[in-house]
């Protein structure tokens, strides 16, 4: 058998699910953030697969944007986490729940 588009999609979907799972599971904000990156990657994979199989360049170009955006996001996000750590000396979500009702 040959590899189908669906196989790639499955992998990407699996990655997405795992990423989501990680976000749900972990309490370390850094790890949560990593998992989010993972989800973005899953999207990338799907995109590339689609554009390859459907013979359209737009997907690949989109990936380019996604990567750059992700990079920027990471930079800002980490900056926030660091700044917060300076205040609270922790990166654990349940210890970062001062704002509540």
């Amino acid at each position, binding site marked *: 058998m040959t590899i189908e588009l669906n196989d790639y999609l499955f*992998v990407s979907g699996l990655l997405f699910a795992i990423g989501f799972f*990680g976000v749900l599971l972990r309490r370390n904000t850094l790890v949560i953030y990593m998992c989010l990156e993972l989800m973005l990657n899953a999207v990338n994979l799907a995109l590339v697969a689609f554009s390859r199989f459907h013979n*359209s360049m737009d997907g690949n170009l989109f990936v380019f944007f996604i990567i750059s955006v992700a990079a920027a996001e990471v930079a800002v996000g980490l900056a926030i*986490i*660091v700044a917060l750590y300076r205040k609270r000396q922790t*990166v654990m979500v349940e210890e970062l729940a001062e704002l509540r009702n």
Partner: protein
Amino acid sequence: MSDFLFYLFAALTVLSAFLVTVSRNPVNGAMYMIASFVGMAALFLLLEAYFLAALQVLVYAGAVMVLFLFIIMLLDAEKGRTIRPNRLTTAASTVGGLLLVLGLVYFTLGDSAAPATPLPAVTELPKDVTPDNIPYTTSSRSYGYGLFTKYMLPFQVTGFLLLIAMVGVIVLSKRLDASGDQAPAKTGGLES
């Protein structure tokens, strides 16, 4: 052959991704993350997206994850090891994740999946491009064509986005000097 490679790298990607979510120590997590990214890059190669594969390795595995590691070290990740996710969270998240996977299976492997299409042949350089059709090409030059014509505007906006990110990071982490706006007494800087 390529099938085998696909399975190999897919397994690598997924497995290490999973390990990221479960590994106690964030440092290990970061390592697995890199592995997952590399696997992803390999999959890109299989899809003949060479330029993206390169970007993947450079930006993600290179820049992003290094940044992550650096921060993890900086924030003394040792604390992360001691606490373990409590049962409830584990159970709930597992259920959630499984639900998603279930949906995925129902979706991709079920009858509702998109009809499969044969892998089209691809050229290296773009041919017979029309405004609403840019076929798949492998050369990195074709990215340039796309980005600077059709995707010119998003491209520029991305530039501003990076500017925003840069300014933002500066705002969030630069030590306020005495000029104009001095740091209020109650802010503890890194030096503390």
